């Protein structure tokens, strides 16, 4: 039953996606067959007719050109020049000698007409005579068999997983990701595998690659609607789950990093597209306009700018010659009062990314204005005599907050539960201390010292990378009434080492992780991203 359902879903996904949509799963399929993936094209822009370059298990280079849909004679004529490049231009990659013979593949998720096959046979004869590679064909049926076999080999047994998978696959691609459901599904897929107990890294390698294939299916609704944030959030949750697995079992790099690198590459590709679209528009109203504007508009712009700034910062950390985009800084300076909305602590990390970006890009005072606003907002709301003013915690989503504000409020928010407490006060206070903002902190200290600080401390460090952890302490405490400034600065700059090791090794991922998991913003997480940002900005 499950097998039949999965096959139908995979077929439905495969035939409705474009070449970019099946590029990641296809690369994972090749990895599962023992290939080493050397190159994955970005934005569907081929390099010399090649979308993918791999070394097969025998070390033979392979070049693939990916197409979507059926290929008839008319279409074949249109794409002949690209096929010619695929075959006739040598592979240009530092790991491959230009004179090494390679195999060429034309891949499509549709069918190829018999007339086209005959054309390909003829051309193959001619290329073969010239000592060039010939074109091999991979079509829908072969792809489908490969994807279905991969899915079935690792699909979790629990019936709840199938239900989660179906719900996620059928989700409205214009909506937010259902993170509870996606996390539950990914946990089942990646973190409940028996290979974890036996530390079977070969098995876990397969699990990670097939999980990427399955996740691509789940992301299809968001890609179809060009919902960048939905796609970014889903892939970030996938990567967090992979890193949780790696941290737990300490899997050597070669078994997980190729998949991780392809996925983070896709994340960056999506963010580049988002930036291009954002910078090309004057007005960001989305249809239907009836539900847009006001706080919905402000929330969307805060989220989008937060993502774009996190992207710039993670590129800055990963690449020594990355130049931060000053256009974003101009927009931030001009619009932050008008556009940014701090709806609750689930919005803190967007604002922090924007502030960190502004600090790194121009050291303009706007970075501190943004932070100070957040500190004041938390202090005023959470020391108010009216508990109804409580500021929502990071577990409360922007969706819940907006829904509660739009009359008639179907799901009113109990703000009393948040009054007097804050998960993000301590990280922000320590951040301000690192920035030497003593006067401002002293002004606010009467309020700061009355608010109960909260932080979740997982028993196992790898649980930090989970959407929800079931072993750990919810800690609450107060900052000291009379606080020594030098002691506060020492606390703020100390490396607590409380994050998973994998994040100290891959700090660039923390920028996106914090956007998707705002409840993971701690003093140590903010210290690490700030330290990394500034050390890279100064080089």
């Amino acid at each position, binding site marked *: 039953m499950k097998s039949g359902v999965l096959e139908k879903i995979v077929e439905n996904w495969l035939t409705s996606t474009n070449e970019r949509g099946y590029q990641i799963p296809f690369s994972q399929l090749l990895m599962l067959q023992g290939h080493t993936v050397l190159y994955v094209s970005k934005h569907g822009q081929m390099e010399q007719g090649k979308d993918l370059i791999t070394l097969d298990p025998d070390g033979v280079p392979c070049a693939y050109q990916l197409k979507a849909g059926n290929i008839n004679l008319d279409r074949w004529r249109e794409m002949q020049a690209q096929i010619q490049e695929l075959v006739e231009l040598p592979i240009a990659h530092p790991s491959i000698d230009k004179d090494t013979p390679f195999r060429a593949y034309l891949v499509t998720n549709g069918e190829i007409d018999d007339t086209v096959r005959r054309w390909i046979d003829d051309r193959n004869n001619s290329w073969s005579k010239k000592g060039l590679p010939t074109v091999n064909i991979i079509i829908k049926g072969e792809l489908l068999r490969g994807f279905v076999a991969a899915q079935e080999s690792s699909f979790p047994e629990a019936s709840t997983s199938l239900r989660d998978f179906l719900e996620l696959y059928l989700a409205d691609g214009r909506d937010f990701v259902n993170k509870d459901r996606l996390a539950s599904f990914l946990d089942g897929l990646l973190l409940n595998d028996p290979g974890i107990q036996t530390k079977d890294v070969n098995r876990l390698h397969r699990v990670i690659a097939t999980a990427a294939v399955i996740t691509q299916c789940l992301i299809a609704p968001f890609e179809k609607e060009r919902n960048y944030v939905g796609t970014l959030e889903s892939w970030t949750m996938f990567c967090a789950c992979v890193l949780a697995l790696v941290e737990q079992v300490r899997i050597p790099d070669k078994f997980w990093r190729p998949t991780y690198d392809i996925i983070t590459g896709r994340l960056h590709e999506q963010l580049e597209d988002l930036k291009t679209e954002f910078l090309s528009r004057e007005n960001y109203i989305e249809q239907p306009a009836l539900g847009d504007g006001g706080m919905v508009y402000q929330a969307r712009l805060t989220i989008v700018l937060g993502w774009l700034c996190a992207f710039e910062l993670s590129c800055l950390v990963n690449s020594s010659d990355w130049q931060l985009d000053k256009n974003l800084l101009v927009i931030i300076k001009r619009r932050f009062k008008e556009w940014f909305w701090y709806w609750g602590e689930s919005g803190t990390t967007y604002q922090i990314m924007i502030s960190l970006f502004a600090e790194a890009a121009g050291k303009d005072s706007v970075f501190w204005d943004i932070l100070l606003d957040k500190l004041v907002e938390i202090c005023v709301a959470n020391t108010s005599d009216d508990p109804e003013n409580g500021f929502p915690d990071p*577990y409360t989503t922007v969706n819940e907050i907006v829904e509660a504000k739009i009359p008639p409020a179907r799901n009113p928010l109990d703000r009393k539960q948040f009054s007097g*407490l804050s998960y993000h006060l301590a990280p922000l206070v320590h951040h301000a201390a690192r920035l030497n903002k*003593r006067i401002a902190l002293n002004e606010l200290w009467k309020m700061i010292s009355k608010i109960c600080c909260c932080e*979740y401390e997982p028993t196992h460090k790898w649980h930090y990378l989970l959407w929800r952890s079931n072993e750990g302490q919810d800690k*609450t405490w107060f900052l000291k009434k009379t606080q020594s400034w030098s002691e506060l600065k020492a606390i703020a700059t100390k490396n607590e080492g409380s994050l998973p090791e994998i994040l100290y090794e891959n700090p660039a991922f923390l920028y996106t992780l914090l956007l998707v998991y705002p409840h993971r913003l701690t003093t140590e997480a903010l210290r690490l991203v700030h330290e990394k940002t500034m050390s890279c900005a100064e080089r």
Partner: protein
Amino acid sequence: MGSSRTPILGLIRTRRIHEGNMISVTTEGGVTSADDFKKVEASFRVTDEELIRDGFQAFLSKIDAVAEELATQKEKLLIGKIHQVTESTGSVIDAKGQGLSWSFILEAMEKIDLEFGPSGKPKNLVLVLHPNQIQKFLKNAAVWAKDGAYLKAYNQLMAKKREEWRVREDSRKLVD
């Protein structure tokens, strides 16, 4: 969750904890206590006869009792925790069977850090009594309110507490 029989719960804010299996609380005074989560549960039974006769109402009729039971258990846990913390911090005084005299009440208040509102009156001050003692206490309180000695001692204590509070509030600052 507070009900007419468990008014303390009605005074206390509750919050949802989303993760983990433990909580750790450090007070303003720096005392930390950690605990795992406690399960609060109650059961009820609807017989076949009740279900056939009353339908869904058969379940509804039991819900109040279940809620009351859950609230009582929560309140007991809460009072037990307060007792444990006050014992550990030396904040417990023993009436030694002499009942609630005004001097005893003032002695108890002496142990508390009071907060004051803009009107100068104490904030968030709650006296929790056993239900059997409430009537007697209210009767005595009415008498004490006319007792000059009590009023003088009370006002002196409040003045002292107000000053302590002012000093505490003034101490909320950054120092070198």
